């Protein structure tokens, strides 16, 4: 499986409601030891949000605040972003990912710091 197959996929919940699109995949470094790197990264979950452009520009992070013209609308859009833990992923289709349970009981992702 490749990362690119997960990105931009549509996400629907058990009832068929649209949750959004995969903006990003959160990794956590708690896998088996690999080579000289240390613990491997494992997928912790999916960052899912509205299908907008500019999801990769970096405004999801707390330290990215300018310029106002771009930051204001993009940061507001990012507040609608949700985190889907991997254990709620039920089925990986070609372009659609189904999750268990309802879209309503998803939390926001834990914010990651910038430098």
């Amino acid at each position, binding site marked *: 499986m490749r990362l690119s197959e997960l990105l931009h996929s549509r996400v629907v919940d058990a009832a068929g409601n649209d949750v959004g699109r995969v903006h990003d995949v959160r990794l956590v*470094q708690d896998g088996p030891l690999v080579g000289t790197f240390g613990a*491997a990264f494992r*997928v912790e979950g999916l960052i899912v949000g509205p299908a907008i452009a500019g999801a990769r520009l970096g405004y999801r992070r707390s330290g990215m605040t300018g310029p106002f013209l771009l930051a204001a609308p993009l940061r507001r859009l990012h507040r609608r972003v949700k985190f889907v833990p991997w254990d709620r992923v039920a089925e990986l289709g070609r372009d659609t990912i189904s999750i268990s349970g309802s879209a309503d009981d998803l939390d926001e992702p834990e914010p990651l710091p910038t*430098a």
Partner: protein
Amino acid sequence: MSEHVGRAGRAGRLRRLDAGLSLLDRQILDRDGRLSGKVDDLELTPPEGDGSGPPVVTAILSGPGALARRLRGSVGAWLESVHSRLHPSAEPGPARIPFGVVKEIAATVGLSVRKDDLELSRFEDWTRDHIIGRIPGARHAPE
């Protein structure tokens, strides 16, 4: 810098990052600091055993073989054909950099091996051997 935050053992917190923001499309540098392509995709492998549970990131995929799949459309198809034409084997997959040789992830992705030890220097070697290397002065030091 964010890559020092949460290294296991430092504060007990595990390191987390978002693959698209912090890994994908990043510049790869080899052990000597030479530019060695970009992270075009990541290989995710289901875990050992029963295969349930979160996939593990096992390799970085780089080069036209990997990029072609991400681009889709006609440009991707063209890249894919270039890649298979330059590749000697019949069923070429994308060039793999096993995650074990990654040394650090910061603004760039640093490796612990030299560029020549990776399989993705094929196109570069061809250009060097057939075109640029043949022009007089190609080995002249820059200063």
